[in-house]
Structure formats: C-alpha cells, structure tokens
C-alpha cells in the first residue's frame, strides 16, 4: 500500500492529552496498538468511523486530527 496522502496529528495530540500511550488510545477506540503505530507513521488510512472515534477521544473535530495533503 503506498504511503497515505492523509496527514495526521495523532502523535502530537496524544502528548497534549496527558502523554496518552499508544495502547491507551488503542483501547479507547477499539483497535490494536499496531494500527495506532501505522496511523502515526502515516502507513495506514483509517476508516471514517475509526477517524471519528480518534477525534472524539481527543475532543476535537476530525479535520483537526486528519488533514488531506496538498495536491492529493
């Protein structure tokens, strides 16, 4: 799978939310830690449902967590 053209701020937001661990975020949204790592490395594009769950954990709109790269 080519590298995702969607940029995200998950890593930054985790640290801004009490240095939440990847496992804690994974537990909150119901996915594996491997998926969170691949999301942070922008190697995996989540479904809309997972993106919304992640945004809800951080209490921010989806477009502040995920952003379409310029020219994509």
């Amino acid at each position, binding site marked *: 799978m080519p590298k995702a053209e969607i940029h995200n701020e998950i890593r930054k937001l985790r640290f801004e939310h009490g240095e939440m661990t990847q496992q804690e975020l994974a537990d909150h949204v119901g996915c594996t830690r491997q998926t969170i790592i691949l999301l942070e490395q922008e190697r995996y594009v989540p479904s809309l449902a*997972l993106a919304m769950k992640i945004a809800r954990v951080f209490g921010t709109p989806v477009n502040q967590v995920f952003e379409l790269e310029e020219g994509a």
Partner: protein
Amino acid sequence: MIVVLWAILALVVGLAAIVVKARLAVPPRPPLPPDVELPDTPLQRTSRLSLGAGLVLAAFACGVVVVHGPEATMADDRVRLLFTALLMAILVALSGASIRLKVQAGREGGMLDERDRAILDRAPAVQGAGTILTLAVWTVGLMVRFHGAGAVPLDYVVLLFWSCLVVHLLALPVGILMGYRRS
C-alpha cells in the same frame, strides 16, 4: 498425451504468474523507521501459532508417507491410523483457529480491529491459489507416474484429497501473515 502435459504445465505457470502479479499489485508497505517496532496483533500471533503447529504436523504426516510409501501407508492398519491421526490433528488445530477467528471477526469490540478484518477478508485468495496449484502438481505427477498403466490407484486419490485439504487450511494463516506485510 504430451500435449496434455504441456497444457497442465502451462496452467501451472499461468497460475504462478497470476500469484506473482497479485503480489506486485499490492507492494510491501514502505519500511518503518528503524526505531519503530510493530508489536504483533492477536490475529498475527494466532496465525503464526496455527501455521507452526500445522506445518510440524504436516511434516510428520509427509514423513510417514515418504518412509512407508503411499501404498503401504494405506494398506498397513497401524501406519494408516498414525497418518489419519496426524491429519485429524491438523484439521482440528487449523479449523479450530479458523473458526475462532471468524467468530472474533463478527464480534464488535473483539480482538480484531478494522485492519485485521480487512486482512482476514483478503487472506482466502491465497487458499484458492494454493489448492489449485496443489491439484495441478498432483495431476502432472500422477500422469507422469501412471501414464502407461492408464489408471491411478485409489491410495493416491486419498492422498490427493488430504494434501489439498491441508494446503487449503495452511494457506489461511499464510495469507493472513502476508497481509500484515503488505497493509
């Protein structure tokens, strides 16, 4: 007869080409930075475990047939019992793991997430290719071996069935593990 053999060989090569093309169509995921380590998912662990157990049991079953020969394996009650017991163990181990995964996949909040489910959905493609290739190899082998006799002993038909079933079962964890390398 030579024409038929060539047709089968062409089929095998064609199928191999399809598999290679499929692999190229979904290239491996770009490498992660060296400091990033991916922990195994529960699905990966289950697949690795069932594949390992299945391969060990399959190797023992193959060993029994190689040591005793196909005809003696089926003729001798004790050897046939050992061979059947090994195959049953493979069937129970891999079918059990497969059913458990299917149940987990249908359960919200289970051990599988959306990525695991996508990988699990794509994995059966490997089962089809593996089974067809096994059949093709058997067909070529049986035709070469029994070309003159004009008939194939029933023992070989039983072995053909079991080998296809074992390959079919082993191909699922293989497909899953391949999926993790590519998605």
